[in-house]
């Protein structure tokens, strides 16, 4: 089973690595890039929102800071990769500044508080950098999609790998313990604040890297754009659609999110967001564990049929 997993993942990566060689259509490559970016963002958000259970509505701040630092450094002439790293670091610095006061807030107040923090940055950046971040001509001439494709692919792989390692580690288990019952976790010697801060730091760093990659990819956008709250909402939406607190859930959610939106844009045009909103509500109502829980539901149903009367607790949990 384990070997099977490793082989299939390797195969998948090889196929993905071949995509730009085989496919020449720019729009397809762009779609893949979008999927990778959203996988990375959803998985990063999930580390704080899913593993440690702190629903953040402020991740646009980390994404935006990563984009801002990267863009400014890169345009100044710094190499791209260190610039992106600097973007991630700036996001971590901001996260550590706001971490302790933010974690005084619980549950929905944490969500609203982080939304307010991100809005403060959003408005301030809009005031300080009211212009469009355009590329200098020489960069525009040298612009190629190929390297960007591999950058986003590696970003998605790195973020998912971090999430995977975390889920199976002592640190990740600590985060989940804090999510389930803070007081109980504390009584077992797990510092809730420490674990939340670590989750926030890792999550912010990876989101900042995503912002950096975004700044390297997008030709021109308003400096303020990556700070707008829609980014935070998108991350949350993808994770909830896929399934919170799992490694696979955010990936499924991101792929569903991008492909579904693309499909709706092409087929229903201006109504696409209305239908998408409806789909999202349906998931929240009928699949509270996300798409990934649909698989478990099917498996449980099959098992129940094979063994009449079994599996009562699973049924109650879903109901």
């Amino acid at each position, binding site marked *: 089973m384990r070997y099977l997993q490793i082989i299939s993942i390797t195969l998948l990566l090889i196929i993905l690595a071949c995509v730009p060689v085989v496919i020449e259509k720019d729009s397809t490559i762009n779609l893949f890039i979008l999927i990778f970016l959203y996988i990375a963002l959803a998985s990063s958000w999930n580390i704080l929102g899913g593993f440690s259970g702190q629903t953040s509505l402020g991740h646009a701040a980390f994404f935006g800071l990563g984009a801002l630092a990267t863009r400014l450094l890169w345009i100044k002439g710094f190499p791209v990769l260190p610039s992106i790293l600097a973007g991630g670091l700036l996001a971590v610095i901001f996260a550590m500044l706001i971490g302790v006061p933010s974690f*005084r807030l619980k549950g929905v*107040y944490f969500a609203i*508080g982080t939304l*307010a*923090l991100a809005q403060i940055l959003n408005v301030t950046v809009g005031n300080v950098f009211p212009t469009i971040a355009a590329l200098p001509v020489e960069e525009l001439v040298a612009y190629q999609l190929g390297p960007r494709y591999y950058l986003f692919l590696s970003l998605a792989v790195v973020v998912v790998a971090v999430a995977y390692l975390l889920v199976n580690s002592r640190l990740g288990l600590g985060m989940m313990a804090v999510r389930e019952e803070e007081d109980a976790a504390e009584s077992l010697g797990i510092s809730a604040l420490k674990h939340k801060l670590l989750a926030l730091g890792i999550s912010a760093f990876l989101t900042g890297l995503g912002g950096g990659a975004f700044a390297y990819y997008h030709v021109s956008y308003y400096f303020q754009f990556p700070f707008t709250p829609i980014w935070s909402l998108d991350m949350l939406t993808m994770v909830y659609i896929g399934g919170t607190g799992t490694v696979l859930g955010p990936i499924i959610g991101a792929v569903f999110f991008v492909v579904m939106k693309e499909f709706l844009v092409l087929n229903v045009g*201006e109504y696409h967001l209305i239908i998408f909103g*409806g789909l999202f509500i349906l998931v929240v109502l009928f699949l*509270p564990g996300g798409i990934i829980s649909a698989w478990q539901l099917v498996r449980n149903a099959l098992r129940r049929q094979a063994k009449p009367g079994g599996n009562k607790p699973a049924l109650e949990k879903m109901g």
Partner: protein
Amino acid sequence: MIEAVAQNLVFGILLGALYGLAAVGIAMVFGVTKFLNVAHGELLMFGGYASFWLFKLFNLDPFLSLPLTILFLLLIGVVLYKLLFVRMVKLPEEEKIKNTMLIGFGLTLILQNIALTLWTADDRGITTSYSGAAFTLLGLRFPYVRVAGLVISLVCLFALQQFLRKTYTGKAIRATVVDWEAASLVGIDVHKVYLLSFLLGTSLAGVAGTLVLASFSIEPSMGMHWTLKSLIVMVLGGAGNFMGTFAGGILLGATESAAAFFIPGNYRQVVGLMLFLLILIFRPQGLFGAKER
């Protein structure tokens, strides 16, 4: 100088009354049902559009068409409740808040884009015979429309307070807030109480939308702004005390105006948010809320 500051404060307070009214709506729903309806701003936007089209098509004055607007919002409220929110009633509190918030985000997308496709992204405002008129008191200008906004907000608030204090149904709502299990044991229909509170919230959104239209203008993406303000004011004022919530709205409006006056650049929103965060962190029960337990 002093006069300019005072004038600014007047406008801030009048705007703050609208923040307060919007927030009382969201707080009413949250306080009783623990539904965090983040689509409240979109409901407010729909109220504004209802009022706008009644004015445009039938030449009905926005203040006179208020009952029709409220009726429209009641209809939307019933549909949303019966279709979506009723399924959340039995969830445990934490999950209820989270799931209704998620449903609210979905609704935000839906309602905002319905408005966008039906009525375009244009800014909509109305001009009545009294639109620009104002009276002067102590050398300060008071536009009639905005003062009317303050007065109507206060009337709504007073009526709500009397309803909750004096009537049987109002008492049932308050009992449900304290302990819904005990309330249902003594024969209160908790479902009805939830529906009623939800509808009170949506109708207040309708009133607020009308007032925003009368004093300013409306457009499809305004909802997020008003939801955020309402949430901020709700937390500022502290839950369970509508006069406190309303006062929080006035405070936010006044602070923003002062900030806009003294700080160059467009930082009024930032100052309001900072105030909010500071209070959230150092006085989580709100400015006027009692300490929990």
